[in-house]
């Protein structure tokens, strides 16, 4: 089994359209929330989301390419390009056939679907744009990353709602570790702040009216976000041999299913996924310094996650730094795990833990050290990143600081 290095990072997020701006944002406690501007937004009760503001597709693509690119694919490609450029990897020739593109997304091209439905249902038009289906199909982001980046190896989308990106990255990690591929471009993308989806989220009644306040007293729910983050993974030895900068090492991956309620979080499923990641990495709970929590800011997630962390880490739990970057970037659903792994990799590199912002005071049921309201400088050797999805699907990655 090969050791697996992260050699490239890329991001398009509510806090900025590249990794550096995202990292500056999450360490300074900047908030990425703003008004919802999609078509028919005036009919939404929810007024706040975490959109990728100011993203200009024409700065990245020509008009002809854009005809087949839903926003969800645009984000993925822009983030993938940044990650590949940073890695210095030239994906061509034999390597292009030995490189994977595994991308997580919760729902694919929802903007395209909304546009098409609005035409036929609301405007009584009888035809939709000709490329509606290939733009909205859920696998489009992976296909289009492969096309734009010249990747010709294993390529597909993983869909597990809010754990999609973490499942994708875990799959890519397994492929590189086993030697099935020589490199992987992987991460997650989402762009579903559109009328139909937001109406669905309103009906779930779990969104905060103003801000997400993970692990805080008086928290009122989550805020929906969009964006993408992508990574380049390679065997550590190969990356070192070509002189690449090793940004971090992925050391473990754990998955579980609750087989219980479709939407209520389950402490047992969370626990099994975290233990799976630690066991896969041959780590003891006491080796872990930092947890990038799922931390949605809903009443029940944060209680269940706290309880699961206590079960996994026992006496070590109070010593963990546990923070939720969703407090600043919102919940990017199928991309969330990628944005959070990005924050985790940067935290390992910089020895700096992003805070849990908007924290008003303790909730007795969420009594771990959640790094409230201010980033913290501390050495981090090992971190885990948690993703727990609707559908009861859980995925956790364990990451190690580059030696």
């Amino acid at each position, binding site marked *: 089994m090969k050791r697996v290095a992260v050699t490239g990072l890329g991001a398009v997020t509510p806090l900025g359209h590249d990794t550096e701006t995202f990292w500056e944002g999450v360490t300074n406690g900047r908030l990425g929330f703003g008004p919802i501007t999609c078509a028919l937004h005036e009919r939404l*009760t929810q007024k706040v989301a975490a959109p990728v503001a100011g993203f200009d597709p024409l700065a990245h693509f020509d008009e002809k390419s854009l005809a087949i690119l839903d926003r969800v694919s645009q984000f993925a490609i822009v983030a993938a390009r940044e990650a590949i450029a940073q890695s210095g990897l030239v994906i061509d020739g034999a390597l292009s056939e030995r490189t994977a593109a595994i991308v997580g997304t919760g729902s694919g091209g929802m903007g395209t679907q909304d546009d098409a439905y609005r035409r036929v249902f609301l405007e009584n038009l009888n035809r939709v744009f000709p490329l509606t289906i290939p733009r909205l199909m859920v696998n489009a982001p992976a296909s289009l990353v492969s096309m734009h980046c010249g990747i010709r190896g294993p390529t597909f989308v993983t869909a597990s709602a809010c754990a999609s990106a973490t499942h994708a990255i875990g799959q890519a990690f397994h492929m590189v570790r086993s030697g099935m591929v020589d490199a992987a471009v992987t991460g997650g993308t989402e762009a579903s702040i559109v009328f139909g989806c937001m109406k669905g989220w309103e*009906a*779930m*009644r*779990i*969104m*905060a*009216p103003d801000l997400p306040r993970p692990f805080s007293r008086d*928290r*009122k*729910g989550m805020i929906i976000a969009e964006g993408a983050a992508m990574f380049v993974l390679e065997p550590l030895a190969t990356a070192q041999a070509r002189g690449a900068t090793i940004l971090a090492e992925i050391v473990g991956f754990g998955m579980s299913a609750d087989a219980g*309620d*479709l*939407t*209520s979080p389950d402490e047992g499923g969370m626990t099994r996924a975290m233990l799976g990641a630690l066991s896969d990495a041959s780590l003891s709970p006491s080796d872990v310094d930092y947890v990038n929590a799922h931390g949605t800011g*809903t*009443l*029940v997630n944060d209680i269940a996650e706290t309880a699961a962390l206590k079960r996994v880490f026992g006496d070590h739990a109070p010593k963990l730094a546990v923070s939720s970057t969703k407090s600043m970037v919102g919940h990017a659903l199928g991309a969330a795990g990628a944005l959070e792994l990005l924050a985790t990799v940067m935290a390992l590199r910089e020895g700096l833990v992003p805070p849990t912002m908007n924290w008003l005071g303790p909730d007795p049921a969420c009594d771990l050290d959640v790094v409230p309201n201010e980033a913290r400088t501390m050495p981090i050797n090992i971190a885990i990143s948690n993703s727990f999805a609707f559908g009861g699907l859980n995925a956790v990655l364990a990451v190690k600081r580059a030696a």
Partner: protein
Amino acid sequence: MDVAAEVIKIIAKKVPGEPRELQAGDNLAELGLESLDAVEMIFDLEEKFDIQIPVNANNAKAEFATVGDVVTAVEKIVAEKARPA
């Protein structure tokens, strides 16, 4: 329309097990309503009375603890809607 009776009928649809007479003091959680049942119940009430019930699942348990809480809230919203602006 007897708002209270209609509300109770809608709540009763979500209560698992044998049909039973609901009392104002009955606790929804103790009746066996899970979180998704509550969300569906609120949707049914909004559809039935053509109203909006501003409830967030994150604090619904405190606001909507009992059958009586739901009846009172819906009666109030329906009455406000009937009053000319």
